[in-house]
């Protein structure tokens, strides 16, 4: 979060010269344009307009250029508008008072606006820090739960196997060993996702593009989820003569893995999960849809947020999966769409822009 703010501040400092140019330019422009119409409206109105210009500048620019613009506008007003024009003398006590008041109001205006903006920035910073602490706590909570559950399973199952081997039937022993196996696989998956998240967070994720047989990749992911899919139907019919695409399989495969794992974990038993594959000229399109209950419509936009978990969901997720999906697809300059489908169910669509090739080896090379 702080990494987001500092570059902006740095940019602002770099833009100081530009701020001076714009401030002075605007004041000069307004002063000059009124210089030729001052007979129509009177020179006192010009002061109000200039004051407004300075106020507007104060809303967007730093204090130093704004103060400088305020001084410049006062000087210009005196020189070009207060009679006698074209010199810095002021004849009447009324004009002198006006000039002094203009000067003070312009300065106060600039200083006050700047102070308000500083206070706002401070509040924003505090909010951001609070939000990142909240995020951190959410991560720790869900992580410790997500890691401890399989660890407890492993330790507990091993204890039972070690301490009361004679009381267990052969079938129970096999079951316990299977539980240890599942827990280990689950732990490995969580570590995988944490590593994926840290790759995203590092901020310089550069996809390593290479040619990939997308159908084969999808089959690999399906095979990896076979045991988790026993209560669901997983359907994928690969299209004939599908081109190969140049993508980073190391990023798209975990994205698919997360989507399929989610579909299996959060839809009721008996649900059918369909994987669709198609393409347009320069985009590979992968769809993962299910006929489960779908997402609450008002939550559709939030589910890709980091650590976001739908309320009242069964345990078994860190809230990292979908943000990884989004991050990895966006690293390919693609995007992820989520929509509910009729009559019920959810559909994720991955649109991945990539070079494709239908190159065929010739028979008589």
């Amino acid at each position, binding site marked *: 979060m702080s990494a987001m703010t500092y570059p902006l501040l740095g940019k602002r400092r770099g833009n100081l010269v530009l701020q001076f140019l714009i401030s002075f330019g605007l004041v000069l422009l307004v002063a000059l344009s009124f210089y030729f119409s001052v007979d129509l409206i009177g020179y006192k109105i010009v002061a109000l307009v200039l004051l407004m210009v300075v106020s507007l500048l104060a809303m967007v620019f730093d204090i130093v250029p704004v103060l400088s613009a305020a001084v410049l506008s006062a000087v210009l007003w005196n020189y070009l508008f207060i009679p006698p024009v074209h010199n810095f003398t002021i004849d009447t006590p009324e004009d002198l008072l006006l000039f002094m008041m203009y000067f003070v109001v312009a300065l106060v205006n600039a200083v006050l606006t700047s102070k308000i903006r500083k206070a706002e920035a401070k509040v924003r910073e505090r909010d951001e820090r609070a939000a990142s602490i909240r995020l951190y706590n959410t991560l720790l909570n869900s992580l410790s739960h997500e890691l401890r559950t399989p660890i407890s399973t492993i330790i507990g199952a091993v204890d039972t196997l070690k301490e009361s081997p004679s009381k267990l039937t052969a079938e129970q022993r096999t079951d316990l060993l299977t539980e240890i196996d599942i827990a280990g696989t689950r732990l490995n998956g969580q570590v995988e996702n944490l590593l994926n998240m840290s790759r995203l967070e590092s901020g310089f994720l550069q996809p390593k593009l290479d040619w990939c*047989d997308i159908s*084969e990749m999808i089959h690999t992911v399906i*095979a990896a989820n076979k045991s988790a899919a026993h209560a669901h139907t997983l359907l994928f019919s690969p299209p004939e003569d599908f081109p190969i695409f140049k993508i980073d*399989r*190391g990023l798209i495969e975990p994205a698919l893995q997360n989507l399929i794992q989610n579909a299996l974990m959060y839809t009721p038993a008996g649900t059918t999960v369909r994987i669709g594959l198609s393409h347009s000229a320069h985009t590979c399109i992968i769809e993962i849809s299910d006929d489960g209950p779908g997402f609450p419509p008002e939550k559709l936009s939030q589910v890709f947020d980091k650590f976001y978990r739908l309320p009242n969901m069964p345990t078994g997720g860190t809230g990292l999966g979908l943000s990884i999906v989004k991050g990895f697809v966006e690293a390919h300059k693609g995007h992820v769409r989520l929509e509910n489908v009729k009559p019920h169910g959810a559909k994720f669509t991955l649109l991945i822009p990539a070079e494709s090739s239908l190159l065929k080896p*010739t*028979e008589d090379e």
Partner: protein
Amino acid sequence: MNRPEILIIDDEPQIRRLLRITLESHEYKVTEAGTGQEGITLAATHAPELILLDIGLPDIHGQEVLHQLRQWYTKSIIILSVIQGEAELVQALDNGATDFLTKPFRTGELLARIRASIRRHQQTDGNPIVRTGNLEIDFAARVVKKDGELVRLTSTEYNLMALFAQNEGRVLTHQYILKHVWGTGYQTETQYLRVFVAQLRKKLEDDPHQPIHILTESGVGYRFC
């Protein structure tokens, strides 16, 4: 028959214990080294049949251990690593490693790799026919049969198939395959490779999308089984 000796070079005692129990229960003799230096010394004095080398060692980098071992050691070296598809793995394979396994691995897979590596090394050259499942590759006649039927292959397809068959069970990096089938200068043309592998699968696999013979090792290369 003598029990083949396997040298484990890994700094994690728990992994060494697991490997020792697994390997000893499958009739292998086991020697352990906790550091790269110790591993190099033990390899020289014991001359093991196969070395399991962890690439992330604390004292010397695994690549360096591999490099030093390969100065004289000609038998199989299998790399153990915690990273999948990383450049490091490809580098190790291109620098003479026989195969690799990513932690966590299944012990069944470990034993299969060890068996394949040892068998391949003991094999005398010029085995004229390789059979695996429903496939048969006859190097003398330059033909490939599936379920006893001749499969029509272009010459490049045959060359690729022959390279796979000569390295049955072993992972081959993209670079290695491109260099041996297409020649020097084609090492970056992975597009050719993908297309020809897809074509071979179409002709040789029952389901080309769920291959059982030509397997993809994501980010590394292919393995023919």
